[in-house]
């Protein structure tokens, strides 16, 4: 990854020097061996800050929302999940594909930052959950590609064994599981704010005057938040796992997302969001063959 770091810096430098990009988004080292942090480079000399290591986990795609109105192009480094995030924004009409220069990187799977904190400096750090579940480590869209592709054979279908296990539980058990989890939710909205599919200009949860969701933190409000959030990204969630990764209290958020993905696959045919930008979204249009038992 050291060689690639040098290439990353070189590519970013060229883009800025030639004026092809006004700013380049990548990762720089944080204060700990196990941390990196997003960085926004606009001067060629600052490209030395860029790095590529096994902790470059943040999905950078959502930052493109901040550059929607920039006069000029943005260069952005994309792993598999980041590239699907870019497609998400393009398909949701939040981003003009022409405005970004995607520099693809094949992702070896990033390490688990939380585990690294717990286990200490000399431990063998496991791969992050979101990377263990990832089926598209190579970017699905890019303009330039650095390094080599893995062409890793992706499992045909998303692994929903955890969802299936939950489905076998009794309603009481399920209720207990979700209430104990959402009792601890802080409603910090980190899961929402990190999500490339959560790109509404004004979020329903911020419109407190409407009374849709009260600010009071209790399990019923928290579950209303959680379910609404999951439904709003239904059919658009790119499975990047960022929401679960950033949860301040370790709520297994992906379980809900995956349940919806599993149901969509069953009802409307297999669908992986963020692989392309032209096809109609499974929940974004009506088709004569759609099941409608409820009508």
């Amino acid at each position, binding site marked *: 990854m050291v060689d690639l770091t040098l290439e990353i810096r070189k590519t970013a430098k060229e883009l800025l020097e030639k004026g092809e990009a006004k700013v380049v988004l990548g990762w720089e080292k944080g204060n700990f061996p196990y941390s990196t942090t997003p960085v926004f480079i606009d001067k060629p000399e600052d490209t030395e800050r860029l790095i590529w290591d096994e902790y470059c986990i943040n999905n950078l795609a959502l930052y493109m929302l901040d550059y929607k109105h920039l006069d000029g192009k943005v260069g952005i480094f994309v792993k598999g999940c980041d590239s699907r995030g870019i497609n998400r924004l393009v398909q949701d009409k939040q981003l003009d594909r022409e405005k970004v220069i995607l520099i693809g990187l094949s992702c070896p799977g990033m390490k688990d930052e939380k585990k690294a904190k717990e286990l200490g400096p000399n431990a063998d750090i496991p791969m992050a959950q979101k990377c263990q579940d990832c089926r598209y480590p190579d970017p699905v869209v890019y303009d330039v590609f650095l390094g080599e592709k893995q062409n890793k054979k992706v499992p045909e279908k998303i692994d929903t064994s955890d969802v299936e296990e939950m489905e076998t539980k009794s309603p009481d058990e399920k209720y207990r599981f979700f209430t104990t989890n959402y009792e601890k939710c802080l409603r910090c909205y*980190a899961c929402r*704010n*990190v999500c490339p599919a959560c790109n509404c200009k004004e979020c329903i949860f911020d419109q407190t005057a409407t009374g849709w969701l009260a600010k009071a933190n209790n399990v019923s409000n928290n579950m209303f938040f959680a379910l609404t959030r999951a439904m709003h990204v239904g059919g658009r969630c790119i499975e990047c796992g960022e929401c679960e990764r950033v949860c301040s209290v370790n709520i297994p958020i992906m379980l809900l997302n995956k349940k919806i993905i599993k149901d969509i696959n069953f009802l409307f045919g297999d669908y992986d969001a963020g692989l392309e930008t032209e096809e109609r979204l499974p929940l974004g249009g009506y088709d004569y063959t759609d099941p409608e038992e409820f009508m």
Partner: protein
Amino acid sequence: MLVVLKAKLKDILNTLAEEYKVLVPAKIEDTSKFISYKDNVDIILDENVKLSPKDVFFPQTEKMYKMKTVKTSMELENITDEAGKKLLFGVRSCDMKSLDCFDQVFLTKGYIDEFYKNKRDSVVTIALSCSQPMQTCFCSAMGVDSQKAVGADVQAYDLGDKIGLEAISDEGSKVIELIKGQLTEEGAEVPQPGEFYLKVDADGVSEKLNGMFESPIWDDVSKKCLNCGACTYVCPTCHCFDISQEVRGENVTKYRCWDSCMFGEYTQMAGGHNPRPTKKERVRNRFMHKLNYFPDRYNMLLCTGCGRCINVCPVNLDITSVIKQIKEAE
């Protein structure tokens, strides 16, 4: 110093539980926080809790009073806290310091917040020293002594397989009196803290910020921030709240709940104007409040170096880096 074996800690807590509602730092549901002591709770002594004890004094959602409309008038009903004394065992120095900050906000300058005061008055604290700081700890840089807490009733010391106890206040002496029979006198010394991994020099940062409201660093610092509320909700010193109500027919319950200056809605005006329209103004406010406005008003920093914000931030926006950046700025 009076000491007890860590293995016998629960005996002491059992004795104290007869007198107080005891709260202990414990692992629960894949996180950790102060919870009611029971024999089977998973007490943690080797690191600080992930969620600070601030909710004991300042709950995330706190019912304030009730109202009921009766024909053309309105009846008000107070909501009282549960009676009885609480005892918080194992509060680290950083979190004790945050209570000092809370006291300034809620009890000084001629204004007393009764909701806070009632809770504060009903809690006795046993602070616990830290033998090894966690990687994200930087309390010493913020003027907090990890071995001796401010405002504790009893100071406990981590002595390896034992815990040393020292009464500080009268209330603390009463606590020691209750458990005296279970403690032994030993010639133990106040331990030395381990080495801190995170290093930052915060000297002069408050003064430096005086002329920096319009500094270009805020653009730079804030770019990666997502404006979630994670850092402020886990922070033991953040104390902003919003007041709202639940209306059910004729019955209204007024409550207050945590709010965060990281949210856009926090400064949203009724007419639609927002004086802090972007992440730049919000992030600037967070750090200015912690490092400049608060020291200006109360003569102390509003950061105790507990490192929680660093731990939860989805994008690793690190307050120690921000302090460095402020100090290096021209």
